[in-house]
């Protein structure tokens, strides 16, 4: 019980001040029937730091980590190198153990960082403004759909087939309760994004069109005609970016006139972490800022005229508006936003562009090498660091078999779209700066062997 500083004499002295004979007297309002008379059964007693470390390390060793294997998984979570100083800085106690900056005079560190983060994110996404982060990309995506409903007063959203199926799933869950109508298109293994099919669906009831960029199969499409089609019908274009590094190499959705751009910021600073915590990015045009969910940090001055920062526009928030709030969110991913921002500061414009270039070069090399394997076909005409292969057999058992050989070989569409037989041969492969040429060669050789065995 090394975290509890009170001694028995302390406790006795404090009870005397309170005027209670025993600690039980302080729990007098708990009905007898609901009191536990001793330690919870089934839980072990307290353990030393060493013993806990041994237990947790044993569990950790049961996993095959990304760093131990040639690694090619993406689809919304990417393995990038995070500079050592990022984790060092976020572990400074003044950041790690700080509270939400509601007392701005003693929280300028967090607040200035959030202001810098908002500016970096807005510039990256190509939007006028950005908020101080959301839970993750998938929940940010749903919040954007709700925001579009508030702005347009319409409840029909069109979701692209290229949107991450888990993001679609989250939106479908929420729509069941809010009464929104979601129109989705079926994913197809074709080289181009389904922009024309989306444009054809837009009508006067449409609140928004949601499109991922690059999409779940790694495809890149020009969003401008889609933005124009949305705006002609007074609907909004929402773009979802799951790989922000891509925006170092290709034009941002905001530059193509998307109204709201949301994203998953995990790629920069955060790490894989088996799916969380991640950091949701959320930017929009200036005119919609008061409808934006989440926290916002704004610049102001103090009583002495010095520049300072505060949380602002909180009249949209749950603690002011209760049931009329723009959302029920009461937290952000502050520490992950800090990691993102530090990583972005280390990269800068020049570093991000080079990082993006290295990612793309590696992916182009891998795509060409893997497509040389008999029966394997590259789907994409354009991609950034992630592309889709069509295998001659179902991809899911191939991934399984390759894992047995120590290779983590991408995400099978069978895993992402269970039951959709037309997609079952698809394998989404991601390559980053952490992928070596040897990794690609090992993967290609093993894939060739495994396919040969299956087809033999």
């Amino acid at each position: 019980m090394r975290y509890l500083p009170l001694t028995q004499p302390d406790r006795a002295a404090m009870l005397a001040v309170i005027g209670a004979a025993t600690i039980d007297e302080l729990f007098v309002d708990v009905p007898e029937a609901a009191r536990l008379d001793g330690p919870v059964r089934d839980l072990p007693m307290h353990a030393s730091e060493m013993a806990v470390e041994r237990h947790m390390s044993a569990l950790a060793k049961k996993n095959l980590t990304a760093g131990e294997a040639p690694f090619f998984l993406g689809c919304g979570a990417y393995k990038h190198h995070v500079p050592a100083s990022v984790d060092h800085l976020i572990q400074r106690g003044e950041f790690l153990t700080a509270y939400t900056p509601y007392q701005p005079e003693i929280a300028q560190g967090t607040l200035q960082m959030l202001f810098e983060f908002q500016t970096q994110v807005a510039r990256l996404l190509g939007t006028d403004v950005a908020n101080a982060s959301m839970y993750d990309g998938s929940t940010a995506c749903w919040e954007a759909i709700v925001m579009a409903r508030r702005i347009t007063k319409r409840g029909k959203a069109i979701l692209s087939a290229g949107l991450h199926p888990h993001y679609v799933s989250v939106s479908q869950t929420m729509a069941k309760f809010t009464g929104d109508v979601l129109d989705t298109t079926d994913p197809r293994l074709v080289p181009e994004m389904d922009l024309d099919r989306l444009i054809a669906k837009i009508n006067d009831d449409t609140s928004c069109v949601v499109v991922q960029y690059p999409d779940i199969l790694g495809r890149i499409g020009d969003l401008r005609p889609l933005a124009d089609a949305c705006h002609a019908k007074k609907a909004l274009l929402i773009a979802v970016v799951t790989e922000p590094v891509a925006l170092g190499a290709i034009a941002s959705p905001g530059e193509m006139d998307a109204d709201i751009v949301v994203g998953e910021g995990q790629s920069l600073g955060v790490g894989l972490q088996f799916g969380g915590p991640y950091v949701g990015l959320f930017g929009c045009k200036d005119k919609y800022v008061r409808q934006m969910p989440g926290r916002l940090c704004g610049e102001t001055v103090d009583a002495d005229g010095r520049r300072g920062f505060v949380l602002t526009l909180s009249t949209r928030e749950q603690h002011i508006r209760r049931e009329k709030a723009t959302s029920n969110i009461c937290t952000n991913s502050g520490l992950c936003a800090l990691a993102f921002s530090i990583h972005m500061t280390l990269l800068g414009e020049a570093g991000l562009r080079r990082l993006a270039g290295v990612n793309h070069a590696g992916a182009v090399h891998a795509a060409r090498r893997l497509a040389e394997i008999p029966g394997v076909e590259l789907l994409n005409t354009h991609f950034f660091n992630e592309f889709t292969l069509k295998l001659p057999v179902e991809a899911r058992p191939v991934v399984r078999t390759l894992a047995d050989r120590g290779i983590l070989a991408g995400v099978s569409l069978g895993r992402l779209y269970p039951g959709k037989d037309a997609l079952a041969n698809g394998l989404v492969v991601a390559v980053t700066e952490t992928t070596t040429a040897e990794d690609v060669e090992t993967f290609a050789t093993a894939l060739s062997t495994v396919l040969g065995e299956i087809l033999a």
Partner: protein
Amino acid sequence: MSINQSGWRPTSPEANTGGVPASVTGNKALMLEEALIFEIGDAKTTGVDFGEGDVAHDMLGALTRKAPIGLPGLSEPETVRHYTRLSRQNYGIDLGFFPLGSCTMKHNPRLNEKMARLPGFADVHPLQPVDTVQGALEVIHQLAHWLVTLTGMTSVAMSPKAGAHGELCGVLAIRAALEAKGEGARKIILVPESAHGTNPATAAFAGYSVEDIPATAEGRVDTEALKARLGPDVAGVMITNPNTCGLFERDMREISDAVHAAGGYVYCDGANFNAIVGRVRPGDLGIDAMHINLHKTFSTPHGGGGPGSGPVVFSAALTPFAPLPFVEEQGDQFVLVEEETAGEHHAGSFGRMVAFHGQMGMFTRALTYILSHGADGLRQVSEDAVLNANYILRSLDDTLDAPFGPSGPCMHEALFSDSGLAAGFSTIDIAKGLIDEGFHPMTMYFPLVVHGAMLVEPTETESKAALDQFIAALRSVAERAKAGDPSLKTAPHFAPRARLDETLAARKPVLVWKEPAPLAEAAE
């Protein structure tokens, strides 16, 4: 979109006041001023080395980036210095006491951080084949088991990303259960006045209308008023226990029984579970769903606003409706139950709330903390938290008004009001005065049922010496507020900033940095 090209830019020298010489840099020894990265960085600098690898643009297509993004870079030493300097303008639990009611800022053990960073947890992908992540799934399964055991409930949904997200999860399960019974016409959620502001926002987000239930004069839910409002249109209640007045809801079982008899469900805001962990199981109080803020009860760091994690425990009645995905032990394997594998047993599930499996990094921290404390330690946690709060309540109720002091012992937080202060003085002046004493202020103006509320939560990780120092400081500040000391109106005096103009920030929002206009243009 241009950014600074000239490198370092000095901040304005401060005015020369009282014979103290002006500072050219704006800094005063360790009282640091720090420019924005946009003012000190530039587009060409980078702090990351990529080696000699190829760079290519050949399969990007027509959308290859041409325009600059506008991102300043700093070298690694400049980056380390920038963020270290910023950090020193922050208060954190590592620096001192945070008496924040309802927000529970307790010591964050560094073992938790170390364990969460083990590559076996930190460096695994959420879509890896499940037999390559058995240890990660076992962490989720073990933590889920302890959460169910500690709460006396049936099951737990691990995926919600934060407390308020957990509230949404609980209310959606209630709605799914009602719809499965053909009772989807129930459209009202009752929320007591003392509830967190997220509760009504959550109910509304889940498609419900919200009705308030008043509090009694002693600071508890008006049970009779609540019972009188129950009926065929009520889906459920959202109640906080221990409540935000710092009191245990004595009638919880009676309230639960009445809600169930009327066909509704009981949601408990578990933000204050740390007051009763190891001593009371919410399942024994008839609760159907409750979220647990892992940072509050199990010490994951607050991080300046997150990330949080809000697993939701469910009663048997709501278990079939819990969200996907979740982890199950099948034979000697842990499996991930997702849409395709849910089967008939979980056919009532209301669906998926997040892309992956929840806040794994928070799970490892919370599990580490639970194992460190064990069953005996967790019971001691709630006892010490309650002891510390009552010690503060009884040590200060001669100086500050404690509106519910006569209602009996408080739980883990002590509630005071600003009544009795000099005219024109309010809670905010006491809060800012505490900053000058070296403390983070308590929670201000919450709960709303008390005028000028000050909610103080010491937590179990504060020593008696720390509490005594805080009590002396708060007593002194309160006495200055009662005497109308004008210097309190301009506090804090010893912080990186004086009081900030929040009205200006809201009236003319400046949310992103923009390059200042050139001097010639500004002069026009």
